[in-house]
Every structure is written in structure tokens, then in C-alpha cells.
């Protein structure tokens, strides 16, 4: 039995061109589909449904701004007080023992201010949440 004859480069090119042309013809000759009769109405139904839904409420940043500013101020004030209260204890390190009770008292006072600042922040957060509604971002 004779082995199959090998194609020359030119013959291979011809074969490739034929296949390419056939693939072109097949892919280009796709039949046109016509959308079903209900397609238009179903799209418009969905569009109308979406149009009827009210737009989402924007987050009330303007209303929340005073609360944020107040909370930030309180926190800053608390932080400044805390640092000021802690400074004497740091500078009077050699005489630590006599000042220890005083420093602890200062720290307790500062902690109170911090707690107050956190409380105010919490209150402003809950007020803003109520203003934004329960479906809001918070």
C-alpha cells in the first residue's frame, strides 16, 4: 500500500484557503432570529417596574455634619486633656511615688472624659441613624 502523498506548501495554502473560505461562509450565513412577540413588552414591563421604584434616599450627610463635628471636638478635647493630665507624671519620674496617687486620679478623670466623649459620639450616631431611617447605610 502506498503511503499518502505529502502536500507541498502551495497545496497546503490552497487547502487552508478553502477551509478558511468555507468557515467564513458558514459563520457569515447565520440565519437571523426574530425576537418573540412578547419580548418588547417584557422588556418594557421590567423598565416600567424599575422606573416606578422610588430612587434610594441619599445619606443625610448635611444633617449628620454637626453631630460629626461635635463628636470630633469632644474626642479631641478628651485627648488633649488626657495628654495634659499624663504629662506631669512623665516629667516627675524621679519622684514617682509621691505623685502616683495624683496621676491615678488624673487618669481616672481623663477616662471619665473619654467615656463622656464616646457617649456623645454614640448618641450622635444613633440620632443620625434614626434620621437616615433603618434602611439607610448604617
Amino acid at each position, binding site marked *: 500500500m502506498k503511503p499518502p502523498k505529502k502536500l507541498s506548501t502551495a497545496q497546503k495554502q490552497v487547502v487552508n484557503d*478553502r477551509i478558511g*473560505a468555507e*468557515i467564513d461562509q458558514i*459563520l457569515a450565513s*447565520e440565519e*437571523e*432570529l426574530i*425576537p418573540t412577540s412578547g419580548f*418588547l413588552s417584557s*422588556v418594557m414591563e421590567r423598565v416600567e417596574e424599575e422606573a416606578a421604584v422610588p430612587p434610594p434616599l441619599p445619606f443625610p450627610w448635611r444633617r449628620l455634619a454637626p453631630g460629626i463635628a461635635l463628636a470630633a471636638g469632644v474626642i479631641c478635647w478628651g485627648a488633649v486633656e488626657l495628654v495634659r493630665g499624663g504629662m506631669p507624671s512623665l516629667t516627675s519620674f524621679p519622684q514617682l511615688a509621691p505623685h502616683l496617687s495624683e496621676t491615678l486620679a488624673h487618669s481616672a478623670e481623663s477616662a471619665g472624659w473619654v467615656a463622656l466623649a464616646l457617649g456623645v459620639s454614640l448618641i450622635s450616631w444613633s440620632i443620625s441613624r434614626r434620621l437616615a431611617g433603618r434602611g439607610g447605610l448604617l
Partner: protein
Amino acid sequence: MVSLTTTLTSTMEQKAADDLADVARVLAGDVQAFEGIVRRWQGPLVNMAWRYSRDRGRAEEMAQEALVRAWRGLKQWRREGNFSTWLFALAANVFRSELRRFPTETLPLEEAPEPAGPALQHSQLEKRGRDEVVRRAVLALPPPYREPVILFYFHEQDVAAAARNLGLPEGTLKARLLRARALLRRRFPQLAGEAGTMHAALNPAARNQGREVTN
């Protein structure tokens, strides 16, 4: 030929003007104006989705999703190009992500069934079956080659339109088409039959368009 081109151009221009007017009305709050856009583009979008999925029902679902997304994002159309260019690009994104979420079942390219050879293609039915096998094989191409082929033939072998649709440079698209063709040719060597020669002889326009990419 000239009058056909002129008619096509004026139809396209008319469509573009209608799109522009309808979009303006929709943005002004007239929801019903969107119906004009759906009427004009439902056919092309369903056909495009069909080429991506080869599933009639799914094609309509995907086309519907694309139109709804277009409605939602109408404000984002910057009017720099035609509305249809924007719409097709958006649709391609929608179809791609839909098919990523729920892929169409396809065989790997190597396992695609053999189409009947020319000697067996006695009936129109067999030819249709063979053509469908080749079209389905496009879906089995590696992802970078699949979409260029789908969109090149969807846009009637217009390289520029397919490139715009995919947001690719024309050179890249041509290179991908060449590679995709090579893969398909290797998969279907039996297509080098009489039909190929007949088509090339009978349809010089298609042959020339094919050559633009082949060379």
C-alpha cells in the same frame, strides 16, 4: 451598489438620530420613549446573544438584561460615538458576565463532533447540521479568540466595528481572528471540499473580506 450604500448610510443615520431623540426623551423622564430603542435594537441584540449562547431562550433573557442595563445606565452614554456602539459594548459585557456565571455547555474543541464530509452532504438538513457543528465549535474556542470571532461575523465581517465593540485595537483583533481561524481550520480539515471552492468562486465579496483578515 452606490445607491445601496447610500441607502444603508442614510438608514444608519436615521437610526442614530432616532436613538439620540429617544435617549433625550427618556432622560427627560419619558419612560415610554425607551420603547423606540427596544424596537430598533431588540433584533440585533437577540441575534448577538444567540451567537454567544446558541440557546434561543437564554439569548432572549440575556438580550433583555442588556436592554434593562442600558436603560439604567443611559446617563453614562457620553454621546462621543453612536448609541449602538455603546449599546453593543454594554451588551457584550452583560453576555460575557452572564456566561461566566452560568456557562453554556460546550465540548472542548478537540471533542467537537466531526461534520459530515462533502460526499455525505446530500441534503440541506445534513449541511445545516454540519454548519451548526462549526458554529458551536466557535464557543469551544479559548476565551480570547471566541469573542473576536463572534463579533466579527455579527458585525458582518467589519473588523473596525468588532474592535470597537470589544475595545481592542484593530491589529489585536486581526491577530486573534487569525489564530482562531487556524484553530478552526485544524479542527475541521474536511471542510476543504467542493463547497469551499464553490463559495470562493461565487462570492468574491466574502472572499475579499476574508482576505483582509487572512493576510
